């Protein structure tokens, strides 16, 4: 930065610190409430006793183990389906010639502009027609073909030098061999970045799973948590916060552990 004065620096750092504080405040409160007895829900006292009872009671009051399983199944299924389908589609758009290519790609780009919530009713009708209401597949199915993933991977594939493609073909790669041995390995950073976006989005997705599920066997964490918070616990904030921390912990921990790889992937994939 050119000519940064002390005053500028104070303003920039100060503003950054303030934003960071505002952002982390709810999380700090959740941690505070979860680890202290209910009496300290709205009282700040450094000498307050620490406890894990809130977690134990939350875990025993609702089938969180089942919800965890459902969510993990859900995000894994969505991610695998998205990577397989969108890699194939992106490869076709990046390197093959076929009639209607431009129109199809425009349609996919337009899909990026449509808010998913608008489609809730239509999606519900489709799932009912397929007889899939209240299944884990139904939660994931509308998201399998991701316009964003197709777009991102196509852009990545298009930056791969043509000569690598030519070389692999001369060496005897089939079309799918080419995709598997050249494009997929070189597209890994973009795939990792997309994987992070996809997992965190579907881990936290709430509205669609709420509508399409109605039993413990299919509900993901988000829906389970909301039901737990509204009906079972009333205003037991300490327990609700303990449950909230539990449900978001895997994502938070995962991000903290792989922070460097994620940031690098994002930089390489060009998403900032």
């Amino acid at each position, binding site marked *: 930065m050119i000519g940064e004065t002390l005053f500028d620096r104070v303003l920039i750092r100060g503003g950054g610190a303030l934003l960071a504080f505002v952002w982390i405040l709810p999380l700090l409160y959740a941690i505070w409430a979860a680890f202290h007895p209910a009496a300290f829900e709205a009282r700040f006292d450094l000498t307050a006793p620490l406890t894990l009872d809130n977690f134990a009671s939350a875990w025993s009051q609702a089938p969180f183990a089942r919800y965890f399983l459902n969510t993990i199944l859900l995000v894994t299924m969505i991610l695998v389906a998205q990577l397989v389908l969108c890699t194939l589609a992106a490869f076709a758009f990046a390197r093959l010639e076929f009639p209607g290519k431009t129109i199809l790609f425009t349609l996919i780009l337009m899909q990026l502009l449509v808010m998913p919530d608008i489609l809730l009713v239509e999606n519900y009708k489709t799932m009912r027609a397929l007889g899939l209401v209240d299944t884990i597949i139904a939660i994931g199915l509308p998201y399998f073909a991701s316009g964003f993933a197709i777009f991102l991977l196509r852009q990545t594939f298009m930056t791969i030098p043509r000569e690598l493609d030519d070389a692999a*073909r001369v060496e005897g790669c089939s079309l799918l061999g080419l995709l598997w041995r050249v494009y997929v390995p070189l597209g890994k950073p973009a795939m990792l970045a997309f994987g992070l976006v996809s997992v965190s989005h579907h881990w936290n997705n709430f509205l669609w799973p709420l509508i399409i599920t109605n039993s413990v066997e299919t509900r993901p964490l988000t829906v389970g948590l909301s039901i737990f918070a509204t009906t079972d616990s009333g205003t037991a904030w300490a327990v609700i916060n303990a449950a909230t921390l539990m449900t978001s912990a895997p994502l938070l921990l995962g991000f903290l552990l792989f922070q460097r790889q994620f940031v690098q992937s994002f930089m390489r994939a060009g998403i900032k």
Partner: protein
Amino acid sequence: MQTGQAQIQIENVSRLFGSTAALDDVSVSLRKGEFSVLLGPSGCGKSTLLRLIAGLDAQTSGAIRIGGADVGGKAPSLRELSMVFQSYALFPHLTVLENIVFGLRVRGVAKAERMKRLDTVAAMMGLSQLLARKPSELSGGQQQRVALARAVISERPICLMDEPLSNLDAKLRADMRVELRAIQQALGLTVVYVTHDQIEAMTMADRIIVMNAGRIEQVGTPEEVYARPATVFTAGFIGTPPMNLFPVALFGGRHGVPPGTGKHLVGLRPEDLFLAETGPEAELRGVEYLGADRLVSARLGGTDFILRLPASAAPPPARFALGWAPERQSLFDAASGQRLAGFDFASPSPTKKDFTHETA
């Protein structure tokens, strides 16, 4: 090594991009075990022709035969050839070892066989110490060797090269020229080599195919192409400085040059000109000292030309009489640009070489 037999035949091949022809009715036959160089300026169609031979692109019309069989519509990998690219096209996510054996793995060659061939080729290319590295950790020259090793290990009889030396510095390029030629000779490879660098063509080629604007101007040994250019284009493209072209009127009636009215051009290399007792009078324009030689720019009757004199000789005076070696002169039709072979002096060296090729 068995040479002389046609390995790759290009028959009336055209390649249109839209309405422009990158290749226009090209026919040539490349012989087995020979180092053939496609030489020409940028955009002359030489790389297009190479991609057609490789099967990476398809011709609009005409046929390509490899080993006698029409390869039209055949995938690149079924054409029994290997290829070295200008950018080397090494896979950045694979190590040197994996890059070299990439093709063998794809084709399902057994691991023991792969490693056996790898040992031989890596030793030959001096890559044995570098096998665990990634391409990004190699110098340009080392990357070039890996690309070459990948072509050699395939043990295919034909190797196509698309300006493989153009990204190297001058010193390395000179070394690699010698090395490439040695490898080609040792393995008896049929090499098709694309370049715009006439030094590469002259030093390595058995035969040069000079191309311009999607057509073949001349096919011949380096000696033939240099001494007896078939067209005005070749005369001007080959040689630094290129061949001087004089209107015939300036020389008419001397040394077998037909007295003309400007319809013909006389071509003479700078080293075929000298200072004479009598002859057409030229006017000195400038002298460039090159160490071993002097390049003298001069003008004769409105035509600028260059003559090469040994540096040991005195620089020429402001006006001097021009002499030339008549057996070295080339005569061209000014309108068509074609060589008029009927006026060639019998010249032993280039034609003799050509003769052996024809009968081999």
